[in-house]
Each structure stands twice: as C-alpha cells, then as structure tokens.
C-alpha cells in the first residue's frame, strides 16, 4: 500500500529531474587545439537551455556535437560521452540520420532550399511520396502555424521560399525542423542575422514551443538569454564555468567570472 502511494510522488520527483541529454567529460580537439575542455552538463526536458559565452568560446562546437553534425569537420576528434534518452550517441554504429530526426537543428543563417515554401516545410519528412496531398497540406499548415508564419504565407505556399524575408525564412527553417517531429531542437544563434522584430518573434515562439520540445539555444546576446532562458550554461574558452537555473545565475551567480559576464558582458578566462 505504501508503495502505491509513493509511486506518483516518485514520478513527480523523476519528472522534475528529467534530464533528456547528459554530457560527460566532453573534450573536442581540432587538429592540435583543444576547443572544448571537460564539459559536463545536463539538459532538462521541456525547458529552454541557453548556452552563453563570448565568441570563440566553443558554444557552437558544443551544440553541434549534440547531433554529431561536426563529425565531418577535418581533423576533429571527440572524447567523452553524450547520452540522449539513456543512449550514448557517440556509439559508432548509431544511425546518424535517425538521431538527427530526434535532435533537430536550426542554423545561424536561414537556409531555405530552392523550392516552394510548402516543399521546404515538408522537406525533411521521410517517405514523403507515400503521404497524401491533404496530409501534406495539413502538416504544412500545422507547422507553419506553430511558427506564426501561416497567416503571412497561406496564400502563397507555392511561391519560392527564397522570396520570403530573412526573418520569415528563419521561421520557415524552424517549421521545417518541427515537421520532422524532433524531441530536442538545437538552435545555433538563430537570430543573429535577423532584425530585432523577427528576433523577438522567434524568442516568443521558443517560449511557446518549450511545452512540446526541449530547446537548446546558443546565443551571444545576453539580453536574449535573460528573456527566454530557463537554464543557463556559461562557457568561456572551451571550459564550462557555470550552469544552473537562469534566475539564480542571473541574480546571484556563484562564480565571479559568471558575475562579470552577466553584469558587464566581460570575460577574463
């Protein structure tokens, strides 16, 4: 009887500690230089984790190793372990394409394919030929609505995607990533090439999307991190300086270097 009563409570405890990704002692070298140095961190599920730090600190390398898109960089070597849903993704036999459908990625510069808007949204969906026309339309509608682009493009789904503005293109890229139904979305400075209004639109969208997805967001814009982050990871010179809930790290960081960065955007490490 006592066990039964405990179980729901335990699951609540587990849920709050639900770490979808755990990184253990990650080290990345490119040729002779060490880009990341003993990174150990965990990413909680259904929250926005922002990775902040000065440029050249290894933020991008870190996020790009989570879906192993860095693999083909010449001269790269990786040590350590990344665990996603209890499985180590550093296993050689893993199906990378499969992994990347579960961990989607949006890049710094919007990159639409030279196809129509609708084709772009549907691009990553496997076995597209087997899907009916109506279903395709529904998928496009659902995902474009999720990124608040539907109203703007509903009447011209067959136009070339390149005709959209950069901000719209980036939202289209996010819709395209959502369409493959990932669990985690990696965003590598997705707003850095956009105007402030488009950037705010994407920030608002992230806050809405976190109910369904785990979001890892690299930014060099501290204000942006303050607006959206649930958790912060501060990286400097390839080292993890501090990680924790955003509220704590922004108000009373335990590390003096974090404090300097959060208050003055200054970093000496």
């Amino acid at each position, binding site marked *: 009887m006592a066990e039964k009563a405990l179980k729901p409570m335990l699951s609540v405890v587990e849920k709050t500690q639900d770490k979808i990704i755990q990184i253990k002692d990650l080290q990345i070298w490119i040729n002779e230089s060490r880009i990341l140095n003993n990174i150990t961190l965990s990413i909680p599920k259904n929250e926005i984790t922002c990775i902040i730090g000065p440029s050249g600190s290894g933020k991008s390398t870190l996020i790009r190793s989570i879906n192993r898109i860095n693999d083909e960089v010449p001269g790269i070597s990786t040590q350590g372990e990344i665990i996603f849903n209890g499985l180590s993704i550093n296993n050689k036999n893993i199906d990378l394409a499969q992994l*990347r459908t579960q961990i989607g990625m949006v890049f710094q510069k919007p990159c639409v394919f030279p196809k129509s808007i609708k084709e772009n949204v549907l691009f990553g969906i496997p076995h597209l030929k087997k899907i009916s026309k109506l279903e395709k339309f529904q998928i496009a509608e659902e995902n474009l609505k999720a990124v608040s682009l539907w109203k703007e493009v509903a009447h011209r789904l067959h136009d070339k995607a390149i005709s959209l503005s950069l901000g719209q293109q980036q939202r289209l890229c996010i819709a395209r990533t959502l369409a493959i139904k990932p669990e985690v979305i990696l965003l590598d400075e997705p707003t850095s090439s956009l105007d402030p209004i488009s950037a705010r639109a994407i920030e608002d969208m992230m806050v809405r999307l976190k109910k369904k997805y785990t979001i890892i967001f690299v930014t060099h814009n501290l204000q942006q991190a303050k607006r959206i982050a649930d958790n912060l990871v501060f990286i400097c010179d390839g080292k993890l300086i501090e990680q924790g809930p955003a509220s704590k790290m922004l108000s009373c960081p335990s590390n003096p270097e974090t404090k300097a960065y959060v208050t003055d955007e200054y970093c000496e490490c």
Partner: protein
Amino acid sequence: MLGSTNNIGKYYVYGSTLISAFIVFLIFSILLVNSWEAVTTIGLDLFNLNWNPATREFGIWSMLFGTLVVTFIALLIAVPLGVATAIFTSEILPSTYRIVVKSLLELLAGIPSIIFGLIGIAFFSIWIQNIFDLQSGRTILTAGILLSIMILPTIITLTDDAFNNIPSKYRETAKGLGLYKYEIIKEVLLPIAKPDLKGAILLAFGRALGETMAVMLVIGSIDKIPDPIYNWLSPGQTITSKLGREIAETSFGSVHFSAMIFMGLLLFIIVLILTIISQNSLKSNGRLYE
C-alpha cells in the same frame, strides 16, 4: 597612373578582343562564301543519302547521321559515368585526396587525340571485332566509345566544380534534418547543380561533335547509314572524318570542295548554337548562391 597610359591599356584590351571576334567572323564568312556554290548548284539535294563526287552527288545526310549517332553514344556513356565520378570526387572523397584524383582525371584531357586514335585502331577496334565477331572493328560504336573517354574529363571537371560551388550550408541543413548522404545528393545537390550540369553536358556535346582525329581512325569511313539504322556495329562516317579524309582530294573552287565546306559550315553552326546555349545555362541566374 596617367590618363594616357590608361587609354593605351584600354585600347590594347579592346583591340585584342576585337581581333578575336573578327577572326570568328572571318571564319564564318569564309565558310559561307565557299559553300555558296554548293548551295546554289545542288540546293536541297545536299541532304540526300548518296555521296559520289564522280556522279556529282553530294548528299551529306549519312555524315550528319554519323556525327549525331557517334556523339549520342559518347554522351550516353560519358554523362552517367562522368556525373557519378564527379559526385564521388566532390561529395564522398575527403578533400585532401580530391585534388590528386581530380588532377589525375584531368590528365585524360591532356592526352593528344591522335594517341586515343592509335590506341583505338591498334587495340580497341580489334577487341570490338573479336567480341562481336565482326569483319572489321572499325564501327560507329567503336568511335562512340572512344569519344566518350575523350569527353569524360570535361564532364567530370565541370560537374565536380558545379558541386563544389554549392555552399556547404545546404549540405549541413539537409544533414541536420536527418537525410542520408545519398538523399542529400539526390534531393538537394543535384537539383541545385542542375543548370551547371546542363552546361557541362552541352559543352561536352560540342567537343564531341568537333573531334576528328581519333574518330577518323576508328569509324571505318563508309558514307552509309547503317541498315537498320540502329545497327551501330557497322562502319559509318562523321562530318569531321569525311572532311579529314577527303578535303585534300578536292580541287579548290569545285562543287565537291564547296560541298565539303558546306558540311564544315553546318558543323560550325551546330557547335556555335551549343556553345551559346551552354554559356547561357552556365551563367544562368535564379541561382541562390550568395
């Protein structure tokens, strides 16, 4: 810099360009003037089947047919082979080896065509003869296969460049969406490289049309359309091989000579049109490269 030196430079560059353009125009008009007699005296009979200078029959149809079929065979073999090779060198081979492999392949382009011809006549046509049990291995097919090897480097180099010009962000984005490598090549890279590919094929087409030496040695030089026309294991004749063999036997100013020049003009016009189309597609806009 002084204004006057600037002007000298300007006229030098202008002048050089004008000379080149003038030479093209000159060649064209010489061909046109010299083929005029054949056009006026023979007229539409130029497109007949029979070529016999003794009876004043100058039908170029079998040469035209030979040219088109040989080129068709060459493209049929070289395009899939060349595009696949270029995909391998640009997308699969690590970039450190790419330069080595590519320059080795480009060496193919540097081999003088007479060498291809000699190998073709000494070995290749013999093989064809033995394999298909023919009286002679000098056939349309032999010429086509030999020609395909000769245009291969053009296709490989231009296609490889086309793939390399595609910004890596497309590959990365597609990879990030969980596409496999062959899907990325098929769904993303090939469609983007398509205009360049078209240009490469047309350029190779033009080169194949104009190739003389190797083709002349292995095609058999019989002015006949094979019977049936898809029997490519019979000897034939192309415009270039006909010109190469017979132009020295004609007397300048005769109708025979004029008919030969007419063939040359025809070839010139076809190659010119192909070049124009291929250049248009090579520089085609609507491309999304930044």
